[in-house]
């Protein structure tokens, strides 16, 4: 039996679709870990990026952080945090948040920096104060970049949440590592395929979000940006 058949057999076994270790439950866990980490990271990184971008201070720090963040091996961060803090939901969320902050921060920062000075001048000329300029002009204009940062972070978080299963968490990675341990290759491949499916759903979600959250006049500009 080849891996494709083993995987088909695993997917078609009804026992794998129910209970706390079933596919829907593990899928839900994975989404929950990722969404929680993304929410916390966004709450920290978007305001920080807006402020550094608006004032122009701390930009070097934001860019350096992003460069180091990109070079950090995700499994090293995950395993070190779990080793130091112990197994549990909190350490895993801490590791995921640490990895998600740099891309959101730097893209928000660069998005705000890239707002044309003419626009901010006009906003000030209309009598807007600094917080209004930030929230009503700079944030909407920077929205495509903020979304790009969120998307990059989400892709990273979904991938790393898979690895968290090795460190005792649930989620879709559990199928991969349990299957590896028990030599059940249909389960390993099935779990991997579910991770791929979730990643595709994440891209689709952000494609949809950018249609809703980005002003019509800005949509063409969303293509360019850094990772």
């Amino acid at each position, binding site marked *: 039996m080849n891996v494709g058949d083993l995987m088909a057999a695993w997917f078609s076994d009804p026992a794998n679709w129910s209970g706390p270790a079933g596919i829907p439950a593990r899928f839900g866990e994975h989404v929950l870990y990722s969404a929680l980490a993304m929410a916390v990271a966004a709450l920290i990184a978007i305001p920080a990026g807006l402020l550094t971008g608006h004032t122009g201070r701390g930009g070097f720090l934001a860019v350096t952080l992003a460069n180091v963040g990109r070079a950090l*091996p995700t499994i*090293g961060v995950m*395993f070190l945090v779990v*080793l130091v803090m112990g197994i549990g939901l909190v350490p895993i969320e801490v590791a995921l948040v640490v990895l998600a902050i740099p891309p959101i921060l730097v893209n928000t920062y660069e998005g705000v920096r890239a707002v044309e000075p003419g626009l901010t001048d006009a906003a000030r000329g209309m009598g807007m104060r600094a917080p209004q300029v930030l929230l009503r002009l700079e944030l909407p204009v920077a929205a495509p970049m903020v979304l790009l940062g969120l998307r990059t972070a989400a892709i990273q978080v979904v991938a790393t949440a898979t690895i968290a299963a090795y460190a005792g968490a649930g989620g879709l*990675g559990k199928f991969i590592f349990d299957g590896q341990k028990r030599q059940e290759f249909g389960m*390993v491949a099935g779990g991997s395929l579910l*991770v791929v499916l979730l*990643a595709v759903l994440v891209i689709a979600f952000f494609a949809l979000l950018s249609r809703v959250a980005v002003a019509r006049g800005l949509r063409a500009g969303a293509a360019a940006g850094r990772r």
Partner: protein
Amino acid sequence: MGDDGLIHWGWIERGLADPIGTALLQHLQLSLIPIALGLLAALPLGIAAARWPKAYPPLLGAVNVLYALPSIALFFLLLPYTGLTIWTAVLPLAAYTLAILVPNVVDGLRQVPDHVRQAAVAMGFGPLRRLLQVELPVAVPAVIAGLRVAAVSTISMVSVASLVGLGGLGGLILRDGFNNRFATPIIVGVLLTVALAFLVDAVLVLVQRLLTPWARRTGAEVRR
């Protein structure tokens, strides 16, 4: 020996050649091969996309979706076919670099000023010679900017390959560190990965300076 909690200096001293040195060399091999393969594939793809702009958006969409697929899943899906060879890691990692390299090759080629291209035509350059001697050299800064991003993220991603049983600094992190509940190898692995990424990045900056002497002479600012 100051063994203050997380760092066990004695282990580092004993393990400097093996496992630390071996893991570092394996890591370098596991990251340089996909970067090189990625560049080899991205150049013709980018050249084709610059020539036939209609083909570019679908190509870009495809490489971007590929980039979003978690490496751990692709490694495990490939494992039954490639086994414990380096290809299990090399093929997905090379594919990821395309999402960064192809757009940069296309941007680089599009940056070639029209008058430069026309001058080459006027000098009797055929399409191939124009590409090799004029257009690609002008695109070098953009291509290297892409290579730098691709190199850093590849070097960081190679560590994940340890979960399927391959070596590299990820092996240090996973087998010597996490599986033994021992923090020192994890810290060494993380720091060496970051150091290796910055070293390769610095080498690429140097390569760019060597390949584009005109940028230095005129002091022209290079994009990114």
